[in-house]
């Protein structure tokens, strides 16, 4: 397989009530990415935008950002889902031989709309939607199932919030850097049992752009320092209705991870992966996904958390960016995770720089309760 590299990343601050329009956010992130890559906008030959008609309140949501994403005179398409899937399509387009340099840009303005209303719309209008269920109430049921299956406690999930908000103190882009304790999480307002406010990611505005290049273009346009290789990727979806699957069974994620590891030549993720950015939309999701990713056995995620295994100073740091708990620009979240890994692998992560890392794991989800997953292995 020809190699594809990420050669540039650009991000806006992840904020709330941003006074910028979608186009301005995308323009900022894309301009920064082009500058970061050190290329000209004309070196880019195609764009994959990641956006959502629902979150944007505009049908043909990509139309709002065509000009801002450098799409004039170029081939463009739009993935509706998480940024990790957009990056996958961007990579496919390069591997097809039709394109050499792809911009993948994602934007999200959560604070311009109603999150509960919008996520309620992902439930079947013919069945569950009438019950008023949304992302939070469904996630709460997944959390309870996970707790019940393995005998886990809310205090254990709270460790994720403490860790990630604390990590965000070293990320100038994150919306919610906070030094908090497990008690702070336990005492925060109850939302839907067992979830409390501090177990949930914040409504966020932001955009993130990454630039992919085929090996030949990457070598021509950039230096070795800037290039991070896309070594492996896999994606897989589980069933749709909440009752069609065991919400604590990560079989779709395991399938996606297996594919990504095989492509990347990874035999044992526990020793081959140095650090990870996983989609912690809610605190309980971090250990659950880490189990699905094979970083620990099923049911062991919380124990590893307690041991500090996933701390910034631990054996396999997870979400040193602050994670989605500190900033969750939904469609852009997966790209935000990828951008963080790129910065870490390049040695450009400032105060949160991890030492001696060469292989990263990125994880994104789509749909309610992590119905669908996309897993990436990035390396230097």
């Amino acid at each position, binding site marked *: *397989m020809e190699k594809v590299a990420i050669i540039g990343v650009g991000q806006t601050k992840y904020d709330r009530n941003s006074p910028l329009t979608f*186009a301005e956010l995308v323009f900022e992130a894309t301009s920064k990415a082009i500058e970061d890559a050190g290329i000209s906008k004309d070196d880019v030959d195609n764009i994959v935008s990641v956006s*959502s*008609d*629902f979150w944007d*309140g*505009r*049908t*043909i949501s*990509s*139309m*709002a*950002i*065509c*000009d*801002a994403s450098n*799409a*004039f*005179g*170029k*081939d*463009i*398409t*739009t*993935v*509706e*889902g998480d940024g990790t*899937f957009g990056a996958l*399509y961007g*990579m*496919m*387009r*390069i*591997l*097809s*031989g*039709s394109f050499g340099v792809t911009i993948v840009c994602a934007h999200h303005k959560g604070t311009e709309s109603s999150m509960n209303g*919008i*996520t309620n*719309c*992902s439930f*079947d*209008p013919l069945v569950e939607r009438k019950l008023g269920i949304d992302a939070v109430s469904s996630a709460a049921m997944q959390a309870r199932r996970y707790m019940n299956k393995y005998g886990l406690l809310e205090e254990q999930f709270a460790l994720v919030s403490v860790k990630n908000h604390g990590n965000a103190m070293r990320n100038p882009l994150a919306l919610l850097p906070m030094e908090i304790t497990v008690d702070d999480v336990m005492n925060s307002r109850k939302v839907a049992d067992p979830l409390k406010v501090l177990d949930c990611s914040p409504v966020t505005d932001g955009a993130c752009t990454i630039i992919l290049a085929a090996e030949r273009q990457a070598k021509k346009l950039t230096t070795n320092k800037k290039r991070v290789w896309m070594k492996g*990727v*896999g*994606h*897989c*979806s*589980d*069933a*749709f209705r909440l009752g*069609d699957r065991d919400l604590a069974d990560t*079989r*779709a994620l395991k*399938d996606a991870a297996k594919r990504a590891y095989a492509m990347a030549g990874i035999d044992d993720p526990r020793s081959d992966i140095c650090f990870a950015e996983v989609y912690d939309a809610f605190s309980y999701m971090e250990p659950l996904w880490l189990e699905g990713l094979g970083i620990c056995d099923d049911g062991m995620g919380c124990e590893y958390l307690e041991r500090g295994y996933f701390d910034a100073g631990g054996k396999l740091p997870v979400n040193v960016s602050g994670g989605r708990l500190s900033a969750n620009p939904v469609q852009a979240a997966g790209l935000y995770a990828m951008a963080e890994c790129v910065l870490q692998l390049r040695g450009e992560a400032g105060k949160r720089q991890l030492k001696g890392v060469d292989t990263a794991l990125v994880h994104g989800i*789509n*749909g*309610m309760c992590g*119905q*669908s997953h996309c897993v990436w292995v990035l390396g230097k």
Partner: protein
Amino acid sequence: MGKRVGIIGVGQTHHAAKRLDASGVELIAEAVSRALDDAQLTMADIDAIVVGNMDHFENINYVDMWAVDGLGACMKPVFKVTTGGTTGTTVGACGYYHVASGLFDVVLAVGWEKNSESDTQAAITTCANPTLERDPFAGAIGPLATEYSMYMKAYGATEEDSARVAARDRNNALNNPYAHSRQAVTMEDVLNSPMLSYPVKFLDMCPRSDGSCAVIFAVEEKAKKLCPRPAWVHTSVVRHDYTHFGDLEWQFMPTLERASAQAYKLAGITNPLKEFDVAELYIPCSTCGVKWMDSLWFCDHGGAPKLIRKGTFEMNGQLPINPSGGVIATNPIGATGLIRVGEAAWQIMGKAGARQVKGAKKALCTGFGGCSWTDLMILGADLP
């Protein structure tokens, strides 16, 4: 380098104004099952799936997740792409790139829409910039009507020319069992139909439909084994250059001109009128079927009326356009572009039944939508 890719199966629903018997998921399952039958495959043979539609028409968020039952996507890789009216061709291009990348061997691409479930115009106006263009924006018909008025004035095209295109597509649909609107019409019928927005009349304009289309793409080695006559994908080109309707150049169709020029170059086509045997074009209004011929490089600017009057694009003409009846006969928006790809593929595969163009070896398909965007794909009986 990339892999070469062939289309080995196509499935469509019987498109209709309202499919009250079938939910969106059931429509999708219908098209997918037919595509699998057409390719003589089972769902187990499918490696990945891509789906598309326009969200606001059915008000379902994350359709790729919702439609898993119909798509056969449980425990398979799947994601969604969407780009307005061009969604269908965008889905087709995505299916192609999945396979061309070498990451997946057999990929199912599905487009669908249940336009009967919403007020189409109300949903579509949300595409316009809410702070700049949404309030004065006049829907899909106004801009198309305006552009033809300009063309009539500049080059002497007439309402008869566009009526001829409407009659052509509508009568072609009589040979297509899947078409939504199947009525024999004369040019006079079209000219006498109610005026919508001068000079566009009722029979000039496409309907909105409920329907789904599924196309199966396969990598060269597998396509050769599985299909006697795959429709090979020669190229895919997209231009979605505009963000605001006020920015467009209206004298010609800029994205179509630029996209087709690039596609012809990549596919080694120098005389498109001669080299294509059949075309399935996204012509939403018959007026476009006149004016846009210039922008496909079939003639110089203003040359289209002459070609139309000569019958160049009729079934027995030099280059038959829309043997299926095109968009004017059938328009389930998220599927419409993909139906162009599917119908063109069937022409190459020799499976187009009563609407078959004999010996079709090279086909052009286009998608249109959004802010005057163009998607384009060229298919051929020979490997590219």
